[in-house]
């Protein structure tokens, strides 16, 4: 999609467009792999894997909080049988859920029986659901046969370094061959196993995404090299995620700082020339349920599921997916017609924050948005950069007394954005936002995101009259 002619430039930029067709087909409905799909399809993680075999300096296994959203955190551990019941319940309740992953709260392959039993049961009862696995890679080569046999065709490996020196500053220890290794020795074994596992997946036709936790002062210098290396080895997607600070970790005690949004953007841009980057990752919990931006896990707790009678109906699911595809097709056709006039001076590039709750539309109110999708709009088109989490302005307290503080926080997170596009923006925040130089635009409510961005760009950035619909 996209592409330019002499006067105007196409809008849609698909990060997976260069991939071979058989891979495109595999990731087409996968919210974690396809940026477009994540607007329409949902995923869930089942928390069946509590044990871990390594200790990362950014992880604290003691911490568990239902309001915390980050990997490694989970509220309720499930047995494989409970997990499959939850999967079937969610599959009927949220039929746009296409993918089940096991990502922890520990490492799936440090819990091989629980992990593989869960996959077996899902495969048996709901064969239309895609399975994926997210691992630190230490045991990947060992279990590659089993992974292939179960039809798990997507594996994510978290690799944070190229050199053992850097890796030794990220991991405190690993448990391998009945021993605890530390320092350089641990780092060497882990890296060797991770890259070996990547190779084994590629050789077995399993799609590999590599996750990297970006910790500027620790591995910042190696990220670009890592990106090149994993692409060369056959990973199809690289996901550079910001390190998230959490209580009680080695890094917190050391005062290690997470990257700023601009540091993240910079490193992503550097690596983008080497391979496809994933920009829409929400670093979700090991028990997350729903579209990527949302977590409906609380609707599917063990107590609630135990009471449910579930009649799994793949036909019903299929019909919903067909509806979604019709919608996607319509949007795609509309997008192909969109274009931005080219300008002599290459055009101004602006960042725009968009409030959306799915279906690729500007359909969320400013006051209820938990996150904004940040797009870069220029004469080259609209490019999704990343999302930024915020506290909703109307956060549910009786009055909006703390609204001012919340608004300040949101402004600080969006200060580099020229405008906010939302379905609605109330008078009070609007005045403050406008004073601080952020345009508030709700006239494009419920339009497809890219169409709204183009209209905004033409009307407000190029100061042209709005194009007639």
């Amino acid at each position, binding site marked *: 999609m996209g592409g330019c002619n002499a006067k105007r430039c196409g809008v849609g930029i698909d990060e997976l467009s260069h991939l071979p067709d058989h891979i495109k087909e595999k990731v087409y409905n996968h919210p974690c792999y396809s940026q477009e799909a994540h607007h329409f399809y949902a995923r869930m993680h089942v928390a069946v894997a*509590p*044990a871990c075999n390594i200790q990362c300096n950014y992880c604290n*296994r*003691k911490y568990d909080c239902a309001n915390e959203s980050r990997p490694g955190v989970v509220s309720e*551990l499930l047995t494989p049988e409970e997990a499959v019941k939850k999967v079937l319940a969610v599959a009927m309740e949220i039929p746009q859920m296409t993918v089940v992953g096991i990502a922890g709260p*520990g490492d799936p392959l440090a*819990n091989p029986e629980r992990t593989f039993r869960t996959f077996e049961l899902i495969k048996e009862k709901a064969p239309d659901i895609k399975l994926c696995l997210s691992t630190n890679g230490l045991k990947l080569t060992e279990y590659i046969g089993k992974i292939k046999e179960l039809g798990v065709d997507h594996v994510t490996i978290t690799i944070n370094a190229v050199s053992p020196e850097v890796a030794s500053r990220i991991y405190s220890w690993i448990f391998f061959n*009945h*021993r605890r290794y530390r320092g350089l020795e641990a780092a060497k074994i882990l890296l060797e196993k991770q890259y070996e596992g990547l190779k084994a997946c590629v050789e077995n036709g399993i799609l590999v995404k590599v996750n990297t936790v970006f910790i500027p002062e620790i591995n910042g210098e190696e990220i670009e090299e890592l990106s090149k290396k994993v692409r060369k080895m056959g990973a199809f997607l690289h996901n550079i995620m910001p390190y998230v600070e959490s209580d009680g970790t080695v890094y917190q005690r050391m005062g290690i700082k997470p990257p700023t949004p601009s540091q993240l953007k910079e490193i992503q841009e550097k690596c983008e020339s080497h391979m496809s980057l994933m920009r829409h990752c929400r670093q979700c919990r090991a028990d997350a349920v729903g579209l990527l931006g949302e977590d409906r896990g609380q609707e599917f707790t063990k107590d609630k599921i135990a009471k449910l009678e579930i009649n799994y109906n793949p036909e019903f699911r299929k019909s919903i997916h067909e509806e979604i595809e019709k919608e996607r097709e319509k949007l795609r056709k509309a997008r192909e017609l969109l274009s931005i006039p080219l300008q002599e001076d290459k055009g101004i590039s602006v960042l725009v924050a968009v409030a959306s709750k799915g279906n690729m539309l500007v359909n969320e109110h400013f006051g209820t948005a938990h996150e904004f999708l940040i797009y870069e709009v220029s004469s080259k088109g609209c490019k999704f950069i990343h999302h930024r989490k915020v506290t909703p302005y109307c956060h549910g307290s009786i009055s909006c007394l703390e609204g001012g503080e919340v608004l300040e926080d949101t402004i600080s997170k969006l200060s580099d954005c020229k405008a906010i596009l939302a379905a609605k923006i109330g008078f009070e925040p609007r005045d403050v936002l406008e004073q601080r130089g952020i345009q508030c635009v709700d006239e494009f409510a419920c339009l497809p995101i890219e169409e709204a961005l183009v209209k905004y760009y033409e009307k407000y950035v190029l100061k042209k009259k709005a194009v007639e619909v």
Partner: protein
Amino acid sequence: MAMFIRQEDCISCYACEGECPTKAINHDEEGRFKIDPRLCVECEGFYEEPQCVAICPIDGCIVRLEGIDYGCVE
């Protein structure tokens, strides 16, 4: 000789249970993990170090049980 799990530190991650060569570790329905001191040999004769300690993510959670007359422990 035996190892002991300090309940206040245990996060019930199951990691130790699967690694124990003498099946001395088990858990109840609430996810409380215990080591049976009559079965635990601190991995002597099996591995260089107690496996439960080597894989436990919480430092100081699994310690050596000392000065206890094992005959009295249920």
